[in-house]
Structures are given as C-alpha cells and as structure tokens.
C-alpha cells in the first residue's frame, strides 16, 4: 500500500510541471495584460511597472525565473494586490474555502447518505419517491437560484442571519446549506443506486438467511458495498468543494479562494492564476488518490497495484 501511495505521490511532480508550463504560457497569450486598463498609461510609466515585475525580460527567462521561484516555495507577488504575495493570499483564503467546503460536505453527507439508504430500503414506496424527487430538484435547482432564495427568506424576510459576509458562525449556515444541498442530492442518488445493487446480492440474502436483523443487514453488510459509487464521486467532488465555489462565494461574498481563482484570470494576475491553478491541481490529484485508497479498503475485490 505504501509503495502504491508513494508512487502516486511522486507522479504529482511531473503533473504539476506540465500544468505550470501550460498555464504559464496560456495566460501570457491571452490579449490584455495585468496593467491594461481603461486609461492608457504613458509608455514610460508602463515600462517602469513592467520592469518592477520583471515583465520586461524575454518570456523564456521569466519562465525559468518563475520555476526557480516556485522550487523555493515562493509563488511571487500578486500583480493586482500590490502589497500582498500569492503565498499570503492563498494562506488567507484557503482556510475559508476549506471551512465552507468542510461544512457543506458535512451537510451533503448528513443528508445524502441516510436519505439514499432509506430510499433504497423502502424502494418504490412514498418514501423513495419523496427522496428521489427531492434529490432530482436538488440536482436541477442551481446554487445561484437556491442561494438568493434562502437569503430572501432567512436574511431579508426573517432577519435571522446576514445576507452576505463571513464574520460569525451564523454567516456559515446559508452558504453551507446551499452548497451542501447540491452535493447531498448527488450523494443521495448514488447511495440509493449503490445500495439497490448490493441489496440484491447473494451475500445479503445469506446474511438475512442467517437471521441477521434488518438494521444489521443494511448498516453492516450492505452499506459498505453500497457506498462505492459515492466514494468514487467524492474524490473529485471533495477537491471541488474544498477549493471553493466561485458562485457560492460571490452570492454570499465569502472571502474564499474560488473568487480569487476566477477573478485572477480576469485581472490577468499571472502569478495568482498560476498559484491557484497549481494548488487546485495538487488537491485534485491528492483527493483522487484518497478516493482510490478508500475504495480498496471498502471493496475486498480490489487490490493496490
């Protein structure tokens, strides 16, 4: 197992290298630069600014300088936010996204798993129909509709929570619910599907024949196999949910990394684009690895190879 994990971790290095290289050159070929603005700068001033950030050097040298920099863990200064470094911005914003993502994930699992199991066990009953319909609605209603609706009701109409911001624990409720609902719907449907498949298997019949209680059959024997599709979904989903959602962060004005990621591209903040892309890539690879490990652990038919 350790060799498997070590090998996969080593693969991250070339993956990141390819991603950094591709991103570095792609952002440079986009028209407009970090200092392009409505009001044109006199050429002398533009030259001073570009010299300050080393943008006056040939592209290949800038690329090599950048690689040298990231080898030392320095992601460079932000072009947009003059007195902040990319390391600092990520250090500030990532914890916020992790917190929001963690809470949303908790909501998603707490809602999705039990409802999925329930729907599978009470298959084709009103419980199943209710859960499936709710799940379908959850998948279909986009967050940019659900979020403002929740704000309208709980923040504006009832005045219980703030409409936006990230100041105290009450500000966590609506964003976590909005983001969590969507994932809960997916998890519910995947759990239901996985459980239905497993509940028809021979070993479940054996367990029942041996007189195991229904709760034991479902929770102990079936759930482990029924969760497999959920786990493979959760790998990339957790990476997405933890790195922040641009839409949720914008609706609720949360100072997370998702907004920085998208806005840095609009601002042509080259170093911030590269920093966030690298972070996302690394997280995605790590989460996929974790999902693979958990799958082997859950499914005795699989082995580390």
């Amino acid at each position, binding site marked *: 197992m350790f060799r498997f994990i070590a090998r996969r971790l080593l693969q991250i290095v070339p993956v990141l290298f390819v991603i950094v290289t591709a991103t570095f050159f792609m952002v440079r070929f986009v028209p407009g630069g970090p200092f392009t603005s409505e*009001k044109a700068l006199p050429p002398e001033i533009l030259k001073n600014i570009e010299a300050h950030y080393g943008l006056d050097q040939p592209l290949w040298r800038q690329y090599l300088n950048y690689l040298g920099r990231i080898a030392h863990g320095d992601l460079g200064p932000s072009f947009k936010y003059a007195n902040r470094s990319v390391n600092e911005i990520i250090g500030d914003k990532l914890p916020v996204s992790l917190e929001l993502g963690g809470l949303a994930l908790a909501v998603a699992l707490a809602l999705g798993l039990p409802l999925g199991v329930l729907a599978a066990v009470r298959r084709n009953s009103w419980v199943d129909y209710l859960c499936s319909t709710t799940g379908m609605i959850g998948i279909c209603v986009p967050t940019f509709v659900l979020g403002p609706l929740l704000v309208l009701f709980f923040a504006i109409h009832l*005045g219980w929570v703030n409409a936006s911001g990230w100041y105290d624990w009450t500000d966590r409720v609506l964003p976590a619910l909005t983001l969590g609902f969507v994932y809960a719907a997916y998890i519910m449907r995947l759990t239901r599907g996985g459980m239905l498949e497993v509940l028809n298997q021979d070993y479940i019949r054996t367990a029942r024949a041996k007189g195991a209680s229904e709760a034991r059959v*479902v929770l102990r024997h079936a759930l482990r196999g029924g969760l497999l599709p959920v786990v493979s979904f959760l790998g990339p989903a957790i990476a997405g949910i933890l790195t922040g959602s641009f839409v949720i962060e914008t609706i609720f004005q949360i100072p997370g990394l998702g907004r920085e990621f998208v806005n840095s591209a609009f601002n042509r903040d080259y170093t911030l684009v590269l920093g966030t892309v690298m972070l996302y890539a690394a997280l995605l690879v790590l989460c996929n690895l974790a999902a693979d490990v958990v799958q082997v652990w859950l499914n005795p038919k699989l082995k580390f190879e």
Partner: protein
Amino acid sequence: MKSARLIPPVLWLLTSVLCFTAACARRESAVARGNREGVLHLSVGSEPADLDPQTVTGLADAKICHSLFEPLVTYEPGTLEPKPALAERWDISPDGLTYTFHLRADAKWSNGEPVTAQDCVDSWRRILTPSLAADYAYFLYLLRGAEAYHKGQTTDFATVGAVARDARTLVVTLTHPAPYFLQILLNSPWRPVNVRSIAVVGDAYRRGSPWTRPGNLVSSGPFVLKEWSPHQRVVVEKSPTYYDRARVRLNAVHFYPTDSIDAEERAYRSGQLHATWALPLAKILPLQREKNPALRIDYNLETYFFRLNVRKAPFGDARVRRALSLAVDRDTIAGKILPGGRLPAPTFTPGFLKGYTPPARTAYDLEAARKFLAEAGHPGGAGLPPIDILYNNSEILRLVAEAIQQMWKRDLGLDVRLVNQEYKVVFASRRSGDYQVLLGTWTADYLDATTFLDMWRSDSGNNHTGWSDPAYDALSDRANTIADPVARAAVLAQAEALVLNAAPIVPIYFNTHVYLLHPAVKGWQPTPGDHTDYRYVWLEDTK
C-alpha cells in the same frame, strides 16, 4: 426497526432547527447598530488593490484613501468652491503659474508629527520617482519640470516646481495656467503622504511595501486605518489627531468590497449596508416608479460614446461619420431604454460641468444624416460594408449597442453587427486599432473640460481613433496659455466643436451614479467626481 432508521435524518434536522432557533430572534441589524454608534457601513464595489494614495487607480481604493489622507485644498459641498484643508490659505500669481500655499499650524499626521511643506515636496518626489512606477504619476506633469524628472531626464528634484520655503509655506510652479489646479489637488495622487513613516517599514520608492497595513499606515485625514481584512472589510476610525476632529461626527466607517451588485443589494435590504455601490439595472425602474426614498441618482462625469476607427473604411470619410452620429436618437436611449435618469449627450463634455459651456449642437437629425450618407456616395446605405460594433460584456453596453444597431438599420439602411469581447480583450483590440466602431466610456479625472478634450489631441495615449488635426492641437495648446477662465473655456469649446464636426467620436449619453442610500445617512454630498467628504456625514435614525 423503522424508527431506528429514521434516527440519523431526524437527529440532523433537530440539531439544525435548534441551531437556527438559537439565533432565531430577529437580530439588530448592522445599520441599526451603526446608527446608534455612529458607524457608517458602505459598499465600495471591489477589493482595494492597495491603500497607497500615490499608486492606487481603482475607484474603491480612492474612496477609502480619501477618508484617510487630507488634501491641500478641498471643496465646499454644494457650491464646489475651493475650501482650505491642509492649506489654510493660498496666493495665486497673476499669470496663474505660481501658487503659494500656507499650511495650517494644527495639521498633524496620525503619529503626532506636524504636516509640513517639506512633507508635500517629499510626497510629490516619491510619486515622481520612476522606481515607484505609479500609474497616475503623469497627473503631476502639471508641475514644472515634473515630467523630465519622472522620465529620468534629470535626477535633480530641485528642477521640479515644488519648494518648501519654510515649514508651513509651499511654493508650486506650474507648466501652464490651469484654473482647475485647486480642484485636481483633491485627487489621490496629489494628497501628501508621510514618507518618513513609509521608509520605516520598507523601501519608500518601490511598490509592494507593507506600509499600508493597519498599524503601519500614518495618515492625515479625518480617519485612521484600523482593520483591513481582504475581501471582507476595511475599517477606519475617527482620528484623534485630525485638525478638524470637532466637526467629524462619524466614529467609524466600514468599507465593504462587495463585487456582486446583486449581493450588495441583498445586503442593503437585510440591513447590513447604509449605501450600495451600484444597483442592478432591473431594480432601478421599479424603485424609480415607487419614488423610493433610498434610491439615489447622482450626476457623474462619465460619457458613454463610440469611437469610430478612421483608419478603416468607410470611417475615413467624415460624412459617413457625421451621418452615423446624427442618426443616434440619444433622447430615446437615455430617457426610455435606460433607467436611472441618464442624460442624452449631444457633446462629449457634460453640459453640467462648472465653468464650461459646450458648443450648441443638433445631435439628432435623420434628414441631415441621410443627406451626408448620400453625399458620401451611399444613398440609403448602398455600397457600405457591414459595420461591427465592439463592446465589452456589460449589460448596459449591450442594451445601448442593440438600440443603436436597430436605429442605424432602420433609419440609414445599414447592416450592423454586434461583437462582444471580455473587457481586457477590448482594451487590447482598441490599442491595436482592431475595431470599426467601439462602444466605451470615459470618466473625468478632475472637474475641467480638458479631462475630456485632451483625449483627442494627436499626442494623447487614449485617442485610439486614428483621428488627429493640427488645428485641434493648436486650439488645445492655446487654451493652455490663457489664464482667464472664461476666455480659456471659449477656446476649449471651439476645439470641442471641431472634433464633433469631424466626428471620430459619437457621444451617446452621460451616465449617472445610481445606488441605494439609507435615509438615516445625512450630510451626504458627493461631488460630480464622486468625492465624498465623510467629515460632513452623520447618521440619524429616522424611526
């Protein structure tokens, strides 16, 4: 059995309901608390890139800087007359070239040091130092010798027209008479900073110094920086060292960088904000109809207009350009298509700009438009290639472009296509001249016609139309030599008439600043350039 399975979801629901009811009672909103405690909650639209008045370019950044840094001269709200600030009085030489400012004795930095004339000179030296790479350093080219110093032609700052005669006397020499000089001192780049305190935390002459962090920032204005949480809020509190502190009625201002206008509107409605930065287009008309007291419409010195690329056929022909301009029904666009009290723009410079009367124009005349088109050899639009209107992906620009596409099609028989690009891509296309008709905006930097008219000089970096005329440059140069404001304005109006007749630009409408302002906010008097002096603002609960 059944109930056991139901336990997890029921438990979860129960906890969430409990959590919610714990915070259940309608809480006192930030606005209500702010009204009680004298704390103003404002949205500033976007996260400030920095709080260094000498390097910032964004409107949000400037708004916050203005609460922290005092200018030499400010304005009287309402009349917009110059009014003493750091300078208690000033003398102007008869030729309008030399200004002698007498600084007040009680002006202090927030670290207790007095604000001296040398501080002003040091500040201007800092912004003009090439290594600082300040975007708006060219604003100071009005100072004699500043341009040469900034472009590195000399390293002797004594050649620049800013001298501290003694601790409280500052003598400024200009390159040409500029009746707007006292006004321009309001702009961030001109506001003095404390260079000594900047040098303590880093290189004062390079970007990216952390001197603008709370705890490091030394300021001279009515407020001092207390907190800067990126993408959350910037908190400034009443300064105990400000010379006019007796007049300051707010205890603090919280600036929120809300970059979604929908989110800020919701935040306003839930009682988190006293004022929004803007308002979604769809929300304006209903509020206008119900005469909502929170709806605020201020005149803005911002013109929406077309650039016509004269290097591309058929726009090389002035008659075609005139025809296009005459066929734009500005009243319909400003009055019917767009909500928010926008004004039709027969000229490029707004008529409500003080001290300047734009040339009288008939802006909309379909008959004349068709005649010009026929004279150019295209009766009824015959023989003209399809025209592309380029604009960036903003909702309001799309509405305007669609309306004019329809007008030109219906009234001139032209085939018009709309081309939409991301905003920085539009700037790149504009610079490379890769467009036919470009829809854009121009916002005044200061309250004078030259901020609009200097654009169309042949040496302007913002022209981008390919049009130039030595006669226009000559008029503009002549205006710069005239000290008498009335005679100067008349020459500038001649220049404007010239560029409007040549029509490399088609003014469409003057924008307004539409936003929500809570009725509890009193003494709110922004200038047309959107400077708000928070000294005069106070909060009064209307309930």
